[in-house]
């Protein structure tokens, strides 16, 4: 035992900074939030144990919780497929082999680097303002644009567009996946009289399925967690009429505007379970539509 410690002490010493950080900054808060979710806690007074009350309230009485779920599910259901389709379409164009492909890859990836930032959300607010660039452009072709951000019928769509615009990272992964499909399969399909549409659905999609699946799971998790765009554009409240009340925005408000830390912790755990459940569903369905070449059986 002594020998073991002496031999490995240097290794543990090097590991220590990360280990301390992980325990204090990740595991600690996670366990703390689990505890807090069973309490009433307003930061000023010590937490008071109330058992399942937070969860009971959430599922039986909280209308804004339901609204937040519906906004978030709608956002995920629309933005994820739209973003993946757009990313795949761009990847297929780039895969055809064009000049200066490196430049295009960088340009298309740029929004994804900027995407999560506050600055872009602010820029987005400027673009979609009633007097913003989008409506100015529409006016040149004679269309009177709506109040994109103030009208609850349109506000969520501006965020969907913002999400789709950040297609860079799934696009790069799709591009790598497309490159990995052997060219001679396309040639065989061509000789087998498969048209472009048939080739896409019979060859490209099934062979890309592992990559599609990977992107789907990643983007789905990303979309459930989406926060800064909705927060900035709605002015931090989920306005107008709670149409931008993303789950994370609601959670943030409960925690930091109303200082209901116990309830916010419960919300966070419910979101974790929702994300885990959807990921599990995706994995479970994947065996019916994802073909892995290396797998045996």
């Amino acid at each position: 035992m002594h020998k073991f410690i002496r031999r490995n002490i240097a290794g543990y010493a090097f590991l220590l900074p990360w280990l301390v950080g992980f325990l204090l900054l990740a595991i600690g808060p996670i366990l703390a939030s689990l505890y807090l979710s069973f309490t009433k806690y307003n930061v000023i007074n010590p937490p008071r144990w109330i058992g399942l009350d937070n969860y009971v309230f959430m599922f039986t009485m909280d209308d804004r919780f339901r609204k937040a779920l519906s906004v978030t599910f709608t956002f995920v259901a629309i933005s994820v497929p739209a973003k993946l389709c757009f990313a795949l379409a761009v990847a297929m164009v780039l895969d055809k082999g064009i000049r200066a492909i490196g430049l295009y890859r960088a340009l298309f990836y740029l929004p994804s680097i900027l995407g999560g930032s506050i600055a872009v959300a602010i820029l987005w607010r400027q673009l979609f303002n009633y007097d913003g660039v989008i409506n100015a452009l529409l006016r040149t072709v004679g269309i009177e644009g709506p109040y994109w951000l103030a009208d609850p019928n349109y506000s969520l769509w501006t965020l969907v567009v913002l999400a789709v615009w950040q297609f860079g990272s799934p696009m790069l992964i799709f591009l790598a996946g497309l490159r990995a499909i052997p060219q001679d399969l396309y040639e065989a399909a061509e000789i087998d009289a498969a048209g472009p549409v048939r080739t896409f659905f019979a060859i490209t999609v099934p062979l890309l399925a592992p990559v599609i699946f990977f992107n789907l799971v990643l983007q789905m998790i990303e979309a459930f967690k989406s926060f800064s765009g909705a927060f900035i554009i709605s002015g931090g409240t989920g306005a107008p009429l709670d149409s931008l009340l993303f789950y994370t925005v609601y959670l943030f408000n409960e925690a930091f505007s109303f200082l209901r830390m116990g309830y916010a912790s419960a919300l966070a755990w419910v979101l974790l379970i929702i994300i885990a459940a959807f990921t599990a569903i995706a994995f479970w369905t994947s065996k019916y539509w994802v073909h892995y070449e290396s797998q045996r059986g």
Partner: protein
Amino acid sequence: MAGVTLSEVRKAYGGLEVIHGVDLEVTPGEFLVLVGPSGCGKSTLLRMIAGLEEITDGTIAIGDRIVNDVPASQRILSMVFQSYALYPHMSVRKNLAFGLTNLRMPRPEIERRVAEAARILQIGELMERKPRQLSGGQKQRVAIGRAIVREPQLFLFDEPLSNLDAELRVQMRVELANLYNRLGTTMIYVTHDQVEAMTMATRIAVLSKGNVEQVGTPYELYNFPRNRFVATFIGSPKMNMIDAVATSGTAAFDDLGALPIAAADGPVSIGVRPEQVAIGGEGELTAEGTVSLVEYLGSEIFVHVRLASGRTLLAKADGKAPHKLGDRLPVAIRRENLHLFDAAGLALPRAA
């Protein structure tokens, strides 16, 4: 069944021309092998016939129809790829049926053809498997099956056996030859292996650097090569080549002696196949040398005989011949067995 006619076919990538005006006539029902060293353009030529590669100039006709602008899918041909190119996510059955489904063929007809192909190729018990569960030889059979269900007017093979091990290659060679005899459809077959070419072909086209060097039956190519390239490429082991200089109707082949030849003054070369270098026999050219290597193959041996000049002649002898390393041996070559080439490497009329 259709023939294929290539006239003045060229292919250039950017400014680099890789096929230099090929003329080739494939008669209906023949098994034509395109053979040549790697980089000679044989695969490119095949892919142009398939419609997978555009042609830069010239015309390609399948039957009477010029197909320059006809897409691959409408050329009514099948192709077997070197990598097999089986669809990895589809079962063997679906791989076979894929092309027929695309042609909107009625289901009973598809099933009949798939079953027929499975029977011919003995892959019936593999039908529900995925390609990754198949051995190399089985994949090869499925790839051929996918080609025959189309009942095409033309089969194209792009080095289909080169990914198989030696034993399987010989077996599949026989199966392919049997398949050809059974179907009688026109086949164009690309290989770099001259043994495959010789054993399977009705006719062979030898390619080198984007040109057709010679087209003919295996017999013609072996016995009457039109130039040095064909002479040395066809035949294993290679033909012996001896350079000389012709002066006033005579050429001296150092150790071997001199011969009157019908060539203009200048450099010439003679070629002689190893089986026509007689050990201890008679001939117009004779020499004596030392055995520097003996390769034993069972039924025959290859004897490397080093002459006084340092040149080595390769001679083929019976497997029971007693020659061994270091032996002094007389060798002789008969004049009628010589191939004579001029300075440009073109065959001259046999020395009279």
